[in-house]
């Protein structure tokens, strides 16, 4: 009996010693991350929160202005415009992108010939889409004598300078974002593969046709993946910058029609050196993205089906 107690005690001691040793090792392994967390992330976060309550042009010391930057935002027509542009961009491009991704994933679902090749072809634009080169390409494709108008001319339709027209410029950016549907498509494909085959077989035996099987099995089983993609793509879309910057020549034109929020933030901070305002804008962006993500999570209760 006593030997058992001794054994337990010594194991405990060993375990606690090991934990202490682990603590020191953990500090060593985590040292770079801790340094990054405090110096590169948390510190600047705190500083940016502080700066958001100041007037700061980088040259003179920040001057405390309280909530001025935040109240200013609601009286700034360009900022309101950028919000409208951004929300339009996100609300139009993300659903279209996910619909394309889902449709292709359903067509490509497992076991078909050439799957790997199709997947690669559709996925490639996702990898390149964020690059300046593609933004330049887009600028030309939708330009006055660009590819789109050449094709339209063949059909006898006279085009317009899409990127230089305030009514159409944002649409070209939306098309560019939809074009990168390959990334969510690959996730959908992985999700489809995880639906147990036996569900379909059982439903078939019960006499369910393909349409019924799609709506009663595929759709509900896939909702967690749809949700995952939705959350991810919304967060991404709110932060897009490069394409709008390059296509609009850096100023969100024409007539601020492509002034994405991040582009306006960049201009305020790094062109106008209005760093306090830019910081306030950044925190507002965090609030918007956090809010959208929260809404997504709350709404998910009503449509996302978890199999447990």
């Amino acid at each position, binding site marked *: 009996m006593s030997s058992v107690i001794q054994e337990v005690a010594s194991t405990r001691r060993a375990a606690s010693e*090991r934990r202490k040793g682990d603590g020191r*090792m*953990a500090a060593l*392994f*985590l040292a770079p*991350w801790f340094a*990054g967390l405090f110096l*590169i*992330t948390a*510190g*600047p*976060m705190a*500083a*940016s929160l502080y700066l958001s309550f100041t007037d700061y042009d980088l040259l003179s010391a920040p001057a405390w202005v309280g909530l001025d930057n935040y109240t200013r935002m609601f009286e700034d027509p360009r900022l309101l415009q950028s919000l409208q542009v951004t929300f339009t961009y996100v609300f139009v491009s993300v659903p279209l992108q996910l619909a394309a991704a889902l449709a*292709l994933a*359903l*067509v*490509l679902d497992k076991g*078909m*010939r050439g799957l790997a090749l*199709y*997947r690669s072809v559709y*996925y490639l*634009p996702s*990898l*390149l889409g*964020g*690059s*300046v*080169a593609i933004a*330049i390409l887009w600028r*030309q494709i939708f330009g006055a004598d660009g*590819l789109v108008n*050449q*094709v339209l001319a*063949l059909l006898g339709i006279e085009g317009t300078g899409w990127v230089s027209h305030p009514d159409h410029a944002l649409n070209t950016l939306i098309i560019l974002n939809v074009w990168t549907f390959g*990334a969510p498509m*690959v996730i959908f494909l*992985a999700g489809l593969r995880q639906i147990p*085959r036996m569900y379909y077989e059982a439903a078939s035996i019960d006499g369910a*046709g*393909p*349409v019924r099987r*799609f709506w009663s099995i595929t759709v509900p089983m896939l909702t967690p993946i749809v949700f*995952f993609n939705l959350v*991810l793509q919304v*967060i991404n879309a*709110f*932060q897009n*910058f*490069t394409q709008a*910057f*390059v296509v609009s*020549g850096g100023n969100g034109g024409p007539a601020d029609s492509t002034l994405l929020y991040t582009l306006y933030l*960049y201009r305020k901070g790094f062109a106008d050196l209005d760093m306090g305002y830019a*910081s306030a*804008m950044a925190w507002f*962006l*965090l609030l918007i*993205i956090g809010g959208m993500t929260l809404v997504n999570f709350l709404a998910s209760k009503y449509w996302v089906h978890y199999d447990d």
Partner: protein
Amino acid sequence: MTDLATPSKVTFAEPSSPSDRRVRRTDGAVRRIRSAVASVLKHTALIVFGFVMLYPLLWMLMSSIKPNALIFREPGLIPTDVDLSNYTDGWSALLHPFSRYLINSAIVVLGAVIGNLVSCSLAAYAFARLNFRGRNFWFAIMLMTIMLPIHVIIVPQYVMFSRLEWINTFLPLIVPKLLATDAFFIFLMVQFFRGIPRELDEAARIDGAGHLRIYWQIMMPLALPALATTAIFTFIWAWNDFFSQLIFLTKPDMYTVPIALRTFVDSTGESSWGALFAMSIVSLIPVFLVFLFGQKYLVKGIATTGIK
């Protein structure tokens, strides 16, 4: 092709087509012919759609080897007159030869890849294998930093780096990676490390190996797929990155490829699309090569984690 007749396949031969129900009632021969026809149609549609997807890229490639005047006159792909002078013109169109920007980008990318591989794997080892106080707390913090938009920290980071006189050096782009600020990859590796059997570490521990040795000699070799995913995505992201390079690099000597390309648009404008396309193609080649050789990991990485 024979597997097209299995029930699971029928589900995915377009759920919307009501003809499927009729198909099942007809006899085998007709069914086989029908599914062969359906399959041919499906593949044709997929190929056509894939071609449309890739057309802008092919068009840019072909335009880059056409004389400037022809780019706007013929929308077709096949050049009637091949002219490689776009590449030589583009190469020397800016202040420095384009090789300068390629080298700058290569330095940034290499630093980012090494930084992420080392620092993220160290942190991941601690979270996956070490017992220490506050592990769950720090793990949660780490997860939260994944969702943080860069805009929230960019202004104070800029202030900090300019005080350190790091603007127009590569340090602001590399040092954060050495400090594991791409927390996303920590998460990826934690997930991977958790899947490696603990018996391996235990055995090594009994043989007297310390954590550093276990990390280096057991975990790292086994984690090659996760390391490859990290390296590939870091490469592509850092190569395509525009926002932070635009902010931290303002001297032409230090320009990376995306910044150089963007300067190209502004300085030469619409007059030399051919040269611009040529350099755009050059800028896409590294990403394309990584895509080609890293496909296996890319698809797995994105399917399990949702990165683009």
